């Protein structure tokens, strides 16, 4: 039985991570939170928060202490955790392995090889078309292209419903926010609509053969996956294949537009694209945070103890900007090559789609690097504020050919 320690008010804060102001520019708040201590207690919600790189990384590695299943799951409210029950996200080892294998059987690099030529070719075509136009939107016309076309085909969704998926994906991530948050409440109909689609419109007859989605249905046929978990397993593709990749590409494009010296380096040496892609997700992490739940009291040192049975919000973004780990963390440096950044998570739940997202990013920015001399903003970009994700909604740009 755990003894509830006296609440040490040294670690208490009233910072609200999900207010419009914080979501617009979270970085000063993340710094304050990291400086409070190894963890901070968010009194507005009753959650603890961890944002220092070494604390977040240790927590992600220690799934037994920082569980993804205990207290329902990794979303910040019970309703959404129930909707996500059975997903690999909300499952601990040993059951996690079986849930996760269904995704790995489609997304491991050996399974993606055959898609690479199409991805690279489409990226070249997109860049050529945008060069002809000169001015375009970096999100609507560039970042959304590969996810909405090639990747939807790879997943095998029926044509019916594809146009609404972006809206559902945005809703699904917002639904993971804290209970009572207005953005969370407003998103629930979209979460429901997405789940209805995955249950009733996407079936083994309507999913394309030899697609990522068909791998899910095959696993259910073989008894490797309980049939009732097919929709929530497919949901991984609906959410993660869209917003996260679109945000990564859009944000990196914005970083280049606002740091022409860095674009010059990449344009002159396209072999920097892989390093730049990692630096982009470090600076602007597409998924900002999720949560875990403690299965025991955790002593983080400095007198900071998180009680057992407590939800702890961990921020990949806060960790990725921690000056304790990254030198000059707010500097966008395409030569940094931050292979240890935490944007793709770490340990058991590390992103299964990392290789595909990286392939898309490399293809798009290599095509740009070879053909584009300059990238400039032509107006104010706008953000979509979301409880979990960070990215742009519009990004007005002009590109000039090399």
């Amino acid at each position: 039985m755990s003894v509830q320690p006296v609440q040490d008010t040294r670690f208490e804060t009233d910072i609200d991570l999900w207010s419009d102001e914080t979501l617009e520019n979270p970085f000063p708040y993340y710094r304050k939170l990291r400086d409070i201590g190894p963890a901070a207690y968010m009194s507005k919600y009753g959650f603890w928060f961890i944002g220092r790189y070494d604390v977040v990384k240790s927590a992600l590695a220690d799934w037994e202490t920082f569980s993804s299943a205990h207290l329902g799951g990794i979303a910040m409210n019970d309703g959404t955790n129930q909707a996500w029950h059975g997903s690999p996200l909300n499952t601990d080892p040993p059951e996690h392995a079986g849930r996760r294998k269904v995704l790995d059987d489609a997304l491991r690099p050996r399974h993606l090889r055959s898609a690479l030529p199409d991805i690279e070719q489409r990226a070249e075509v997109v860049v050529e078309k945008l060069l002809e136009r000169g001015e375009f939107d970096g999100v609507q016309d560039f970042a959304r292209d590969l996810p909405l076309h090639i990747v939807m085909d790879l997943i095998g969704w029926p044509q019916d419903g594809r146009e609404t998926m972006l809206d559902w994906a945005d809703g699904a991530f917002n639904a993971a926010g804290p209970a009572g948050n207005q953005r969370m409440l407003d998103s629930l109909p979209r979460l429901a609509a997405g789940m209805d689609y995955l249950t009733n419109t996407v079936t083994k007859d309507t999913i394309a053969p030899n697609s990522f989605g068909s791998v899910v249905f095959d696993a259910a046929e073989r008894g490797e996956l309980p049939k009732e978990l097919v929709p929530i397993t497919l949901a991984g593709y609906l959410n993660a294949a869209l917003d996260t990749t679109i945000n990564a590409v859009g944000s990196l494009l914005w970083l280049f537009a606002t740091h022409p010296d860095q674009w010059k380096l990449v344009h002159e040496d396209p072999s920097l694209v892989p390093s730049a892609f990692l630096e982009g997700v470090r600076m602007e992490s597409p998924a900002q945070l999720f949560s875990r739940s403690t299965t025991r009291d955790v002593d983080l040192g400095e007198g900071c103890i998180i009680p057992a049975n407590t939800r702890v919000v961990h921020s990949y973004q806060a960790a990725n900007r921690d000056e304790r780990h990254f030198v000059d963390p707010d500097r966008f440096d395409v030569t940094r090559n931050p292979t240890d950044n935490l944007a793709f998570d770490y340990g058991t739940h590390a992103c299964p789609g990392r290789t595909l997202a990286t392939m898309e990013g490399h293809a798009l920015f290599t095509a740009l690097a070879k053909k584009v001399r300059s990238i400039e903003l032509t107006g104010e970009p706008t953000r979509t504020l979301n409880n979990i994700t960070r990215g742009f909604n519009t990004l007005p740009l002009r590109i000039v050919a090399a």
Partner: protein
Amino acid sequence: MSVGKFDVDRGLCQAYGVCAAAAPDHVGLDEEGEPVPRDIVFETPPPDVEQALRSCPAGAAKINYL
């Protein structure tokens, strides 16, 4: 002093490819994206090998001491 080289625990490896991004002199990727250690021997792990060890999300990167 013993010598070592970069190696991969195949049971843990998930082919994220991060080791090759961190330490390309010590490990490459084959056409299936699986790591191929280059058998470069060292007495003390160089910085890029240490980075690869830290970076592998699956904890599969290791040093094989000979």
